[in-house]
């Protein structure tokens, strides 16, 4: 998917380090809890939230069922409006198309609107390899770029940084990328914002090419929509001569009217705002207004494969609001980087293994990066049952099964690393289905209760490192019942 996240360790290993980073934990806790509380209030204001949520899920599902139709309609509408549509099967192809388009303009720098799709493809790296410098213009993306960092949140990519860290990054790095930070920059939010504004203004006024993503693409009109809070995206969408938008194929909605649902669901879920501050919409090109050339790159990169999975496809409903991240207790402790992808948190744990395939220990570990508490499902504005998909993907990891990889139905084998666990689960399943065996085990446990170690060996050690073990009682419930109730419950016990 991207070069930048390659070679990341599996989730538990990455999280082992990040949970011990107290500054990270404090930054994340403060940020997620603040937005969580605001979001609850914003959602509670609408008395038709439940219906809106159901409508959002229904529109997305219907669109996904007829995705081929709506994509062709989108292509026709965009072309009719003066744009050019390109199809990219994977990240490499998307990057090749965008690089070629930029080089053809003769320019060697682009301004970028914050975009998850280009994070996913690792576009900035591909552009750099072709001698093109990409400037991120979203404030948080700018902080991440200047800090040689990776985004750790879908909406707030620099959520893991506090303002003192941001001031240091600005002071240290701004000069290398353009206008230096003002003398004596403090960590006051207004001063930091002003420094970024001055730095970015120079870029907006100079750049001839912009690269964006889109939150929605309307099939019937060919209109693309970007939803943002700062207005920097709008500068990129209107000032340059050439605009290239890289958009995942699942972003299409059938009609203009459908936006009514999503423009209510998205801001309240993501930033806890009633209405989004900057909603920019553009349809092809218009003489004397905005970019003179418009290119739409439609990105597959694993989406069609995901669509082929009837349980997992609901992840494609995602509108990237990040509400699931903000309520997730695992994300809050582990941080976004541990997920090894631009899509962190619960949605990342189901989206990344599907888009990339269960290709490495990292992707295999992601379906387990959840306690299945269900807070993500509850928060999701398009009702993605993330716990259901997580368990479904766990089954793919340990039992294998049929998946679609690059358009071909394939039966994958169970992951090798789970061989011991599989043996244990087989034995447990057998014992649970033979209550007499279970009972013998319970009695053995009870008889040896004086001998139990305080710490467990093997994989159980992780448990007993942090918690005391429960003490085994002298008599199981089953035995107590048989002893005191005259064994009436014994009848029917299979041999």
């Amino acid at each position, binding site marked *: 998917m991207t070069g930048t996240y390659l070679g990341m360790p599996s*989730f*538990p290993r990455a*999280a*082992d380090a990040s*949970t*011990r980073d107290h500054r990270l*934990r404090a930054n994340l806790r403060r940020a997620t809890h603040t937005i969580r509380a605001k979001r609850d209030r914003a959602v509670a204001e609408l008395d038709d939230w439940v219906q809106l949520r159901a409508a959002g899920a229904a529109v997305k599902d219907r669109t996904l069922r007829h995705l081929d139709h709506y994509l062709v309609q989108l292509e026709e509408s965009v072309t009719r409006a003066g744009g050019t549509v390109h199809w990219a099967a994977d990240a490499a192809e998307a990057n090749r198309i965008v690089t070629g388009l930029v080089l053809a303009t003769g320019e060697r720098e682009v301004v970028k609107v914050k975009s998850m799709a280009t994070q996913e493809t690792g576009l900035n790296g591909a552009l750099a390899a072709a001698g093109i410098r990409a400037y991120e213009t979203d404030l948080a993306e700018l902080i991440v770029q200047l800090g040689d960092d990776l985004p750790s949140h879908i909406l707030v990519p620099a959520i893991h940084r506090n303002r003192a860290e941001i001031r240091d990054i600005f002071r240290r790095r701004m000069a290398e990328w353009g206008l230096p930070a003002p003398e004596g920059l403090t960590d006051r939010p207004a001063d930091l914002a002003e420094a970024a504004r001055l730095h970015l203004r120079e870029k907006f006024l100079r750049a001839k090419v912009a690269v964006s993503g889109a939150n929605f693409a309307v099939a019937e009109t060919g209109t693309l929509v970007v939803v943002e809070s700062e207005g920097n995206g709008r500068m990129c969408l209107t000032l340059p001569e050439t605009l290239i938008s890289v958009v995942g194929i699942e972003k299409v909605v059938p009609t203009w009217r459908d936006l009514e649902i999503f423009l209510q669901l998205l801001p309240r879920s993501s930033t806890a705002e009633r209405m989004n501050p900057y909603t920019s919409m553009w349809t092809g090109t218009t003489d004397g207004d905005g970019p003179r050339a418009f290119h739409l790159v439609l990105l597959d990169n694993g989406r069609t494969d995901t669509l082929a999975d009837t349980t997992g496809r609901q992840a494609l409903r995602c509108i990237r609001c990040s509400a699931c991240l903000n309520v997730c*207790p*695992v994300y809050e*402790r*582990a941080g976004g980087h541990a997920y090894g992808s631009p899509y962190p948190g619960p949605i990342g744990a189901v989206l990344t293994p599907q888009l990339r395939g269960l290709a490495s220990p990292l992707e295999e570990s992601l379906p*387990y990066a*959840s*306690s*299945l*508490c*269900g*807070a993500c*499902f*509850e928060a999701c504005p398009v009702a993605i049952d993330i716990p259901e998909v997580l*368990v479904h*993907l*766990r089954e*793919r*990891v*340990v*039992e294998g099964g049929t998946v679609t990889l690059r358009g071909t139905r394939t039966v994958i084998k169970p992951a090798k690393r789970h061989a011991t*666990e599989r043996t244990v*689960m*087989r034995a*447990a*399943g057998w014992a*649970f*289905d033979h*209550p007499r065996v*279970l009972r013998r085990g*319970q009695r053995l*446990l009870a008889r040896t209760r004086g001998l139990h170690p*305080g710490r467990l060996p093997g994989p159980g050690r*992780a*448990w007993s*490192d*942090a*918690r*005391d*073990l*429960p*003490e*085994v*009682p002298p*008599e*199981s*419930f*089953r035995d*107590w*019942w*048989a002893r005191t109730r005259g064994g009436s*419950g014994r009848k*029917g*016990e299979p041999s």
Partner: protein
Amino acid sequence: MRVGLFVTCVNDTLYPRTGRAVVTLLERLGVQVDFPAEQSCCGQPLFNTGYRHRTEPLLRRYAAAFRDHDYIVTPSGSCAAMVRDNYPRIAAKATAEGRPGAVPAAVAEAAARTYELTEFLVDVLGVTDVGAYYPHTVTYHPTCHGLRVLGLGDRPQRLLERVEGLDLRELPGAEECCGFGGTFAVKNPAVSAAMGTDKARAVTSTGARALCTVDNSCLMHIGGILAREGSPVTPVHIAEILAGSKEDGADGTPAGDGAGRGAAR
């Protein structure tokens, strides 16, 4: 009314006091309780770890064990959630995949008769005052499955509020997961312990002497951390509080199952 007690494997093996408390409580309320011995684990640890096929015999076993009961009552929010939320889905999938052994109709029908204890008390028996006495400060942690899958709402609190002598303290961040999550605690030990430690801190901040939930597995996790930290808080299943009476609930240490070795017993 024929009520079958689904005691769950964790309670059967490690927390038999909870099962005994359910029997005491229901019998005090005039309900005749039956314990079919052919019952077993609900299969949750297998299912949640990705071994769906291996749960199918357990579905069949459950439906058979409780086929004659009007209601199936269990003192575990997560096991009730497993039965109600997942059994019908698993059975239907098994049939669709050509393994009809799980009998979707029987399984779905048994799932519909399954109640978590507090739900059964409030919704079926229609009581909130169960005549209990428990003279201690208590804080209540709503477990994730009880809260979000079963939708227990404030039923447990309504029952606790009517317990004589009980002083209920509000738990800060109550709706946050404690971090147990079955095999999650083993597969992601660092995050699980971090979540549990935060939960234990919130519990201690209430000043309550007892922590109560509808699920012993969450109590095992939180209680294990509390015990390791030398906390005086005793983990106790809600059934044991509701079964408490003036005769056995003398002032002093709250009666609990002792989720950790260090916990008072």
